[in-house]
């Protein structure tokens, strides 16, 4: 129907309404692929995970039964699950402070003066860009008990090295070191952008007010002004650490003796190695719940705490 025909057919419809209808039609066309895919690939599957978690379905199996919360009961009774959860938490607790403090230190040093700024930034950012599975293999050789660089370096100082990745006490520690290695450059970049946003006039005011030593400036101006960025870096680092998988999968497969088993390796093993779909889905639901809860509480905290309003 042409516009004039429409006008004749509905002479009483105000022009703005018709314009609105046209806009709505275009909008519908524009959003429909995204809406369909959001439903089909994101929300549908998310719902499916919850449904799977209530069944005893095994992938490839012809039939399944709804078994209520039995999967969850089994999960919470599973020592391995608790072990993986504990390891993940420990990993996060190790990686977050290391990444944040190292990133902050490097950012402060880089921004302290312009010399070689771009060079240092690029050098520290390289690990962020590198493919973890490949670099984990490299780390594996560096942590090798006899030919590895780490033990060779320790040997220079007369310290006897360990078999880091094969030792129950050090496997997770070594993985955390790799996590820090990959993440601190990113934290650095975020801190640098935070530092650039600190107004020079605040440093000037501090100098006039009598604070002109590097540490006094740091305490009075820099660190408080970095508050929001710091909070953000902590959250980001924590959620990334929570999703650790690649390095564990490549280097330890969760071992030795489950000392480095984390949530995602557990999830992978149950769902895709043993094909226990229902059980894997239950694990996924718990994982999802933790991630969402963490993100939401942290976002809350972020809003309340760091906006100096």
């Amino acid at each position, binding site marked *: 129907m042409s516009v004039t025909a429409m006008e004749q057919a509905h002479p009483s419809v105000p022009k703005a309404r018709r314009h609105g209808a046209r806009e709505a039609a275009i909008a519908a066309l524009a959003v429909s692929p995204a809406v369909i895919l959001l439903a089909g690939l994101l929300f549908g599957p998310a719902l499916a995970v919850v449904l799977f978690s209530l069944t005893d379905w095994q992938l490839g199996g012809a039939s399944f039964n709804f078994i209520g919360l039995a999967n969850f009961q089994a999960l919470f009774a599973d020592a391995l699950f608790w072990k993986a959860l504990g390891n993940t938490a420990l990993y996060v607790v190790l990686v977050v402070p290391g990444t944040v403090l190292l990133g902050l230190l490097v950012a402060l040093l880089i921004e302290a003066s312009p010399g070689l700024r771009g060079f240092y930034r690029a050098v520290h950012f390289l690990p962020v860009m590198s493919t973890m599975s490949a670099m984990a293999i490299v780390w594996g050789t560096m942590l090798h008990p006899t030919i590895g660089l780490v033990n060779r370096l320790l040997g220079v100082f007369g310290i006897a090295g360990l078999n880091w990745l094969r030792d129950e006490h050090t496997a997770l520690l070594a993985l955390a070191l790799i996590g820090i290695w990959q993440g601190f450059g990113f934290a650095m970049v975020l801190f640098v952008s935070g530092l650039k946003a600190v107004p020079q006039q605040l440093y000037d005011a501090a100098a006039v007010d009598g604070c002109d030593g590097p540490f006094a400036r740091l305490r009075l*101006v820099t660190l408080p002004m970095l508050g929001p960025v710091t909070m953000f870096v902590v959250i980001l680092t924590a959620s990334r650490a929570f999703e650790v998988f690649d390095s564990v999968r490549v280097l330890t497969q969760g071992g030795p003796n489950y000392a480095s088993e984390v949530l995602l390796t557990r999830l992978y093993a149950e769902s895709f190695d043993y094909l226990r779909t229902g059980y894997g889905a239950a694990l996924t639901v718990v994982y999802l719940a933790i991630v969402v809860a963490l993100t939401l509480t942290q976002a809350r905290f972020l809003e309340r705490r760091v*906006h*100096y309003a």
Partner: protein
Amino acid sequence: MATITLDGIRKHYGETEILKGVSLDIRDGEFLTLVGPSGCGKSTLLRILAGLEEQDAGDVSIDGRSVNGTRPKERDIAMVFQSYALYPHLCVFDNIALPLRTRRLSFAQRLPLLGPLVPGRRVIEAGIRAEVEQAAAMLDVTHLLARKPGQLSGGQRQRVALGRAMVRHPAVFLMDEPLSNLDAKLRVQMRAEITALHRRLGVTFVYVTHDQSEAMTMSDRVAVMMHGELLQVAPPEELYRDPQDLRVAEMIGSPKINVLPAAYWHGQGLPLPHCVPASATHVAFRPEASRLGPPADGQLLGTVANIENLGSDLFLHVVLRDGPVQPAVVRLSPEAPRFAIGDAVSLWLDAGRLLAFDGAGRRSATYEQVAA
């Protein structure tokens, strides 16, 4: 209480010379304003005076004592910044108290957590509290002491910044465009408050602005800067009446002074006004230094292009025949004979108030002024 002497201050960033040897004496207790277009070097000069930047050459002395190379905190100055530069994580009280605390508390007493336990701190803190409250009362921000800067309006932040500056009774107050982030109405109000504060404290104020009306209304003396040089330093009234440089004449006063090239008279077949020396290349006159009349022989002729009626004053824009595109602005009182847009008029200049400038833009004395 302090005099300030700047002697031959030079500064450049890379190739650009920001300050080309500026010398200036500021008297004790004076309100001196540095005014000039952005990029003229006025803020740099103030920052050098504060010790936030170091000059490449020249001397700064405060109260006869050279302060070259000393740090800002050793100069007994306070500064108010354009963005106020309040510490966003500290409440108003702590912002104002900060300069006192950094000076009076020892390192140990300032430590977080442990500081309050160090002996002597409580007595000092009580003193600080009294002084902060006094300053706050003076600026009418007592009810805001517990708030964070983010919760304040622009005008309130401005007052807190003033409070932080005055609380430790510095010998010199430096202000860098402190009103430019405020809206027009508040700006006028704060002008009056700052001048009142100056009268009350009686210390030396050095104030930087690009707004000539701020300079004119607030200052004891105004230093006009351009391209890293001082053009003229004088009280506002003298600057207006007796500018020594064409650029000063053009910068000071609103509406702007009218400037005509001397060649214009020749082009019109008219002699230069008799008082203007032959060496002059430009003749300038204020809107109030001219009158309008019906077209007459031997006078400058033009057409009324626009009329601004401000109630108390009438400003008529007159496009001169074959003259510059920029119309001449003439101030008339509302009681004067009426003109309408499009009227042909002649422009009568008040010979006693003509300003003549030579090719370099410097003032040439007119014969009237020589006679006077």
